[in-house]
């Protein structure tokens, strides 16, 4: 049989999926082993064991100075910033995106402005934000919003435009007002795509979060890895990177699951990644 027609069983698929992960860990362990043969105090590729110890220290042993469990404080603060920023972006995308997509006059007024605004590299605005809002939470959240909202608004507006015109006309012939069409047709049709936009938006959101924390912060996952960088503490940086990746992955899966549960009709056709 041709290879394009051969489908892996569930178990094979799982094993194949795990393979690259396992290979990476083994590859790392081997490289680390040989580096430490030369220099037992090597900082660049610490052993898996010392990485585990460092992670345990961050997660379970109170910090000597502050008495906090650093990993959890960092995680909570970062997720709070990310969550607040993305919540604001989502609300903006829903309100402005639907207005732009549904009402031609609003579209004419805002679409060109938004297209221009979304081209500003958000990180260049960071100094402005620090000057305006100070070095507190506000500037970091604002960076996430500025970095993600324009794209999310645009993709929501596009999702509204993609609703088949037939459905909107049908709603009109059923006597729906603009408001009724918004709550019964446009929002339900757009929400699943909104979740996709949110999942896509989370990728740059993490970048902006870590960048803002790296530059000016006293807590947060990004702050921590840039802090311990000074001591070449790869045993802390590496598990933190894995931890951040895991958080991002879990968030993404949770959103996908939410979409499948809440918008069953949307997932009836072919399935995406």
């Amino acid at each position, binding site marked *: 049989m041709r290879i394009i027609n051969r489908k892996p069983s569930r178990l094979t698929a799982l094993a194949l999926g795990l393979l690259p992960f396992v290979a990476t860990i083994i590859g790392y362990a081997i490289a680390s082993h040989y580096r430490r043969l030369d220099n037992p105090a090597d900082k660049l590729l610490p052993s898996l064991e010392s990485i585990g110890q460092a992670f345990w220290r961050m997660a379970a042993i109170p910090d000597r100075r502050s008495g906090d469990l650093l990993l959890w404080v960092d995680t909570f603060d970062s997720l709070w910033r990310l969550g607040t920023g993305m919540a604001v972006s989502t609300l903006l995308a829903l309100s402005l995106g639907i207005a732009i997509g549904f009402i031609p006059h609003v579209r004419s007024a805002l679409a060109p402005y938004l297209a221009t605004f979304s081209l500003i590299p958000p990180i260049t605005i960071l100094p402005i934000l620090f000057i305006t809002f100070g070095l507190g939470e506000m500037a970091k959240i604002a960076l996430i919003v500025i970095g993600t909202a324009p794209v999310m608004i645009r993709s929501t507006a596009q999702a509204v435009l993609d609703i088949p*015109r037939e459905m909107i006309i*049908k709603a009109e*012939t*059923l*006597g729906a007002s603009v408001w009724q069409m918004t*709550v*019964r047709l446009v929002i*339900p049709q757009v929400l699943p795509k909104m979740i996709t936009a949110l999942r896509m938006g989370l990728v740059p959101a993490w970048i902006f979060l870590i960048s803002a924390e790296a530059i000016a912060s006293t807590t947060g996952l990004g702050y921590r890895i840039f802090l311990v960088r000074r001591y070449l503490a790869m045993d802390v940086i590496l598990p933190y990177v894995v931890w951040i990746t895991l958080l991002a992955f879990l968030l993404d899966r949770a959103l996908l699951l939410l979409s499948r549960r809440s918008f069953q009709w949307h997932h009836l056709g072919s399935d995406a990644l």
Partner: protein
Amino acid sequence: MTGSPDIKLSVRGLEKSYDRTPILERVELDVESGSFCTIVGASGCGKSTFLRMLLSQELPTRGEILLDGHALPDEPTPDRGIVFQKYSVFSHLTVSENLILASELERAPFAGRLFGVKRRQAREEISELLQRIGLSAAADKYPAQLSGGMQQRLAIAQALAKKPSILLLDEPFGALDPGIRLDMHELLLGLWNELGMTIFMVTHDIHEAFKLGTRLLVFDKIRHDPQVPEAYGATITYDLPLATPLTELTQGPEQIASAIGLPGQSDKTNTMTS
């Protein structure tokens, strides 16, 4: 003529062009209340454009359309129901939700949604209708889970929810199998006999047009400029009364089909091309 009581819809000097390219020109029509007008024509002749203007989805470039003697509103309204070939029903609502939507919109101006007892009431009101269109067992399924024929039955039932005096159908059965089409014809004729609305149906199946309609409208170009094929628009070239026992059919489907270059020799070739 316009003031005559049984004239449901009149079209006067209708013209439609896109970017100065005329699609329709000099369309004149009076349709009596309760007629079933079938509209045929070669593809691109403007028959769907004509239907969209009857719906106010598009506005005439020139001329006017009068409904009960008054100019049509310039946006779609509940007095004219519509069934499209696809996307007619709401994909995010189940069959029963699609059917109760019209009454939800009417009774809940702000939320557009009924809850609790009222919702149950609305669902009970449609149970007979569900039976009628054979979708009782599929009441809680989404349109994507239904066959094409079931979706169109739902679309027709939904279009009639506001009791429109005019029902517009834009190639509603174009994507269906021949057997399913026959069932749909029966359903549609039954509803028409019962409710007595005026129907305009665009189709590319000339036999369907002859079978269902009381009046056949053929759209075609009468003026041709061989150098500039798009110089002139189409208009109504044949306007035949059908299916009344007193009128002798002077032209059958085959003649009409060959006159406008549509396939119409037999049902078989017709389904092949459709």
